[in-house]
């Protein structure tokens, strides 16, 4: 197990290193200069600024410098906002996005688990078909379409919820719902398949033959075992949340990093785009790492044999 953790750690560091390198290369390739209103600056001023930001040095030196800066948490200066620190721009908005992400995951996973388990227990009934159809819709329909629809129906027409912003609890309902539906659908689908398989397995019949209550058989023997593989979709789920948050924050004008990211794309604010990219990658890589560890802890078959993927 120790060797396995070490292996994953190394992989994690390499991945982060690779993405930082890629962002650096892209920085170099992109046209334009890092200064606002470049045309208004004199050549002397540009040279001075170049010196200040180390842009007069060879690329290799700049690269090492960049790595060092990123390691220190310095992601450079935004082209907008009068050259504010990208780290500051991001960290000011991070909390809102984290809130949105966690709320959506919690809501999506809980609804998905319930839907999946109920569908599996009522396999072949209308409840089951309903759950399956809901899952297909949830997986297929993009979250931004759902968000637009929810906004149109519940904010603009029925006026039950505010149209935008991130203030009171009422502001959370629609964006969280829009993001959670996709997660709910994939969790439900996964859980249903897993449960159906487990419910037919020999060890469930054996557990029943011991005289255990239906509740015990379902909760202790079936759901517990079905939950283990669910851990494997935490990774893709994180990716979906990151992706989804970009558009959801844009639609509901939520002041998170996703909205900032999309705005930066419109304004070609490369340092913010690349800084956010690094942040997303780090978050994603850490999630995958945690997932792997979690799997090892929860499943004795992996925990006790050192596991290999």
């Amino acid at each position, binding site marked *: 197990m120790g060797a396995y953790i070490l292996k994953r750690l190394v992989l994690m560091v390499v991945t982060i290193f690779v993405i930082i390198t890629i962002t650096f290369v892209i920085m170099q390739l992109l046209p334009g200069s890092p200064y606002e209103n470049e045309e208004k600056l004199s050549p002397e001023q540009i040279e001075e600024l170049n010196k200040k930001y180390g842009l007069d040095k060879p690329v290799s030196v700049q690269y090492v410098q960049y790595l060092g800066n990123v390691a220190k948490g310095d992601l450079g200066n935004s082209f907008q906002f009068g050259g504010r620190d990208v780290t500051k721009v991001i960290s000011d908005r991070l909390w809102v996005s984290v809130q949105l992400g966690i709320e959506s995951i919690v809501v999506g996973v809980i609804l998905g688990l319930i839907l999946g388990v109920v569908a599996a227990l009522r396999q072949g009934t209308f409840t089951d078909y309903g759950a399956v159809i809901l899952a297909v819709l949830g997986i297929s329909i993009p979250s931004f379409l759902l968000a637009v629809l929810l906004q149109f129906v519940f904010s603009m027409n029925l006026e039950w919820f505010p149209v935008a912003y991130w203030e009171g609890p009422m502001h959370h309902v629609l964006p969280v719902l829009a993001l959670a539906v996709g997660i709910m659908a994939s969790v439900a689908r996964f859980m249903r398949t897993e449960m159906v398989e487990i419910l037919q*397995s020999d*060890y469930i019949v*054996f557990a029943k*033959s*011991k*005289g255990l209550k239906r509740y*015990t058989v379902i909760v202790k023997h079936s759901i517990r*075992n079905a939950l283990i593989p669910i851990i494997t979709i935490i990774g893709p789920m994180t990716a979906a949340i990151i992706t989804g948050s970009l558009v959801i924050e844009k639609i509901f004008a939520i002041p998170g990093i996703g909205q900032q990211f999309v705005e930066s794309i419109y304004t070609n604010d490369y340092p913010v785009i690349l800084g956010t990219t690094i942040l997303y990658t780090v978050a994603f890589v850490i999630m995958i790492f945690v997932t792997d560890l979690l799997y090892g802890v929860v499943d004795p078959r992996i925990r*006790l044999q050192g596991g290999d993927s």
Partner: protein
Amino acid sequence: MNENILELKDLHISFDTYGSEIQAVRGVNIELKKGEALAIVGESGSGKSVTSKEITRLNPRPQCRVKSGEIIFEGKDLIKYTETQLQHIRGKEISMIFQDPMTTLNPTMTIGNQIIEGLRKHQKMQKKEAYHRAIELLELVKIPNARERFKQYPHQFSGGMRQRAVIATALACNPKILIADEPTTALDVTIQAQILDLMRDLQKKLQTSIILITHDLGVVANLAQRVAVMYGGMVVETGTVDELFYQPEHPYTWGLLSSMPRLHKKSNKLESIPGTPPDLSDPPKGCPFAPRCPFAMEVCLEHMPDMTKVTDTQSTACWLLDERAPEVKKPELLNV
């Protein structure tokens, strides 16, 4: 010793699948006496497994249903029991062990906890007491280092050890009946013998009645005192082990016996019974074995024969026993 602890009376069980009804069990009568080991023998699809699982209602619902018949356990009909009532029978009075010990145990629960579950439920034992009982059971089924093994997971056990753990789990609450559904089929031959020895010892020690489901006549000879042969969802012959091995009356039993591989046989060829078992979604109206029976008569195809008493303990359902039937020469069976 002669008291029946379990009686299946004219049991009919059907499965509903995709619009057709499969009549898996069609009127089975079986008696199990106290302390006796009864073997139910037959090929796959003969209904033996369905019959045995239905005793404690373990066949999948709602696909499976009992159409008619009774399952009398200690004078009470289990078919009339509610699910909750049955939970007090399962594991406590009637336990089961299954074919594949690799899949019978929950992979994410320690062996110990799987044994304890039943004890806590049925005997209301405290954790500590249950632990001691579990260690005792593990020792009873001859699992070495019981204390250590208690904490381990199924994947840390070998196949034979797992089956021992399964037996320990099944025996936890001293059940009156143990139903063993092909308990050795999935095991290596050497391990098979060990498990059979263990089961025989335990039966002597604990006086548990056993129903042994198998297609392996070697296993039958090893463990059982009485045999019921099933074919096409029916019992076609019953009797003591000696009777069925030395004077079987049913052509299907003859076939089973001659298809047993034996060392000192002149021919190298493995005998088989030609043909396939009947399609139970459209069961034949006569004897189900008739289409494969080398001695089939016209009557066999049209009418199911009654169980006819051959001796006090042996009965056979075959038209050859009718006085109007021609003499047939039984194939040479056991030249042991």
